């Protein structure tokens, strides 16, 4: 199973290396979202408008919402990442090739999830830097931020790959995936935001409970995906 996972993961990453779709399209999309947040929310922040002379003075509204905005940007990018991950399998019916390959479905699930995890983590690092620059986000406890982000991404990826496979055969997959994905992922958004706020404030102990929620979530959905992926491929 792990061998199969490794194979699929390597294949997906190699495709990304060649096509650079995530890098060239999804990442800029995340950036656009960040900028739009700045425009939409920064506007209400009278301080930053009035003191236009004080070059980088970003005001309270954006700064206090930075963690949440960061995660919304990541989630929006994640949906596109999931769609891309399954678009790969749908081109030229490669999905049939996977079915014919007699690879372990659990391995395929873990492999696809692993590749997506890696891509999303890279994406998050860059978006996080964006948040630091654009929103004036200052992370006091970096390791805690990283831990929370990793666990949250694990959950995003697990749910994403399950729903990606669930909808990838459908004609309406582009619209259906976000509808299914976002409500289910809501607790992850909440927990990740709270944990990251704790990291920003430099009080990891207060964010520990959210790490637990994220852990529980990631565990549940990774287990479910591993078990359920076989029937999902057989559509």
């Amino acid at each position, binding site marked *: 199973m792990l061998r199969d996972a490794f194979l699929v993961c390597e294949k997906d990453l190699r495709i990304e290396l060649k096509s650079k779709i995530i890098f060239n399209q999804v990442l800029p999309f995340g950036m656009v979202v960040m900028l739009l947040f700045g425009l939409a929310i920064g506007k209400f922040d009278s301080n930053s408008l009035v003191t236009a002379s004080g070059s980088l003075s970003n005001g309270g509204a954006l700064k206090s919402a930075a963690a949440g905005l960061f995660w919304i940007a990541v989630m929006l990018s994640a949906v596109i990442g999931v769609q891309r991950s399954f678009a790969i399998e749908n081109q030229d019916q490669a999905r049939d090739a996977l079915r014919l390959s007699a690879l372990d479905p659990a391995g395929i699930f873990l492999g696809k999830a692993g590749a997506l995890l890696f891509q999303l983590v890279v994406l998050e690092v860059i978006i996080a830097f964006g948040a630091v620059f654009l929103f004036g986000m200052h992370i006091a406890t970096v390791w805690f931020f990283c831990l929370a982000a990793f666990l949250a991404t694990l959950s995003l990826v697990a*749910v994403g790959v*399950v*729903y990606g496979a*669930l*909808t990838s*055969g*459908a004609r*309406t997959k582009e619209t*259906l995936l976000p*509808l*299914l994905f*976002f*409500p*289910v992922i*809501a*607790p992850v958004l*909440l*927990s990740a935001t*709270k944990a990251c706020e704790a990291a920003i404030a430099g009080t990891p102990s*207060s964010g520990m*409970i*959210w790490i637990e*929620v994220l852990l*529980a*979530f990631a565990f*549940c*959905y990774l287990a*479910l995906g591993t078990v*359920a992926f076989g*029937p*999902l491929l*057989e*559509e």
Partner: protein
Amino acid sequence: MSEVNFAAIPQVFSKRAETATKIIGVLALLSLIATVWLGLFVTPPDQFMGNLVRLLYVHPPIAWVMFVAYGVAFLSTLLYLWPRTRDLRFDRLAGASSEVGVIFTGLTLLSGSIWGRPTWGTWWTWDPLLTTTALLFVMYLGYLALRRLPGDPETRAKRSAIGGLVAFIDVPIVYFSVLWWKSLHQAPTVLDPVTGKTYIHGSMAYTLLLGFVAFTLLYVYFVAKRYRLERLKYLYDRVLLDEAIQERKREAADFKAYGADKKSLVPTAFAENGPALGDARFFGTEEESVVGGGEAGR
């Protein structure tokens, strides 16, 4: 015409079940009328909430039905997934119950919001229960959309079961995370209008109880109807499928008779039957071999 042997199809809704559904429907209607009458005109206003207490006879029963509906849906999903009890009936029940559940979730939010406005002064508050309910509403809308995707019944059932399971695992996680979220923040104190501060008068208690009974009966009636609808659709799709099979067999027979040059070889079943679902697994009409058989399908 179709060759489906209806006698061979196991009938789920017997005459008795249908009569029972009708009786439950009538009972539900009568008890609802009684609840409304008692709630609006007979019971006295509450000493704290005044006339607003009259929403008490509607909102909690609806919320209760919502929980029952999702509970039933979850149980039947589990029963479907469990290999020993795997049966399309459970899939249908899960679908029916969650659709009714979505309706009642919408009503819970609606009536709660209408009640909340005069009581708390706000249409909406980020209370754990409210937030969870709202997310539940969206989540199950997605689940219903997933159920509507085409595919043969077994595939659809499996797909929906997995989707439903994902959604259901989420419910407690959502609830507790929102609970902790609010308790970490200083939550605006939301008073629960049912507990503590309200004296439940004798007639009020009976009316509330009647409300619970009435809405539960309504739920049963709705689910029975919805289940029946699903079952009928399933049978109808099988009729369509059967016709499509006969059509194709005729095609094969034509081929035998007229040879490869005949134009009509392009399958017509595609064009004539729109997208619908069916399952040949239970067909009783496949006995005769097509190969070498020109008699098929007339």
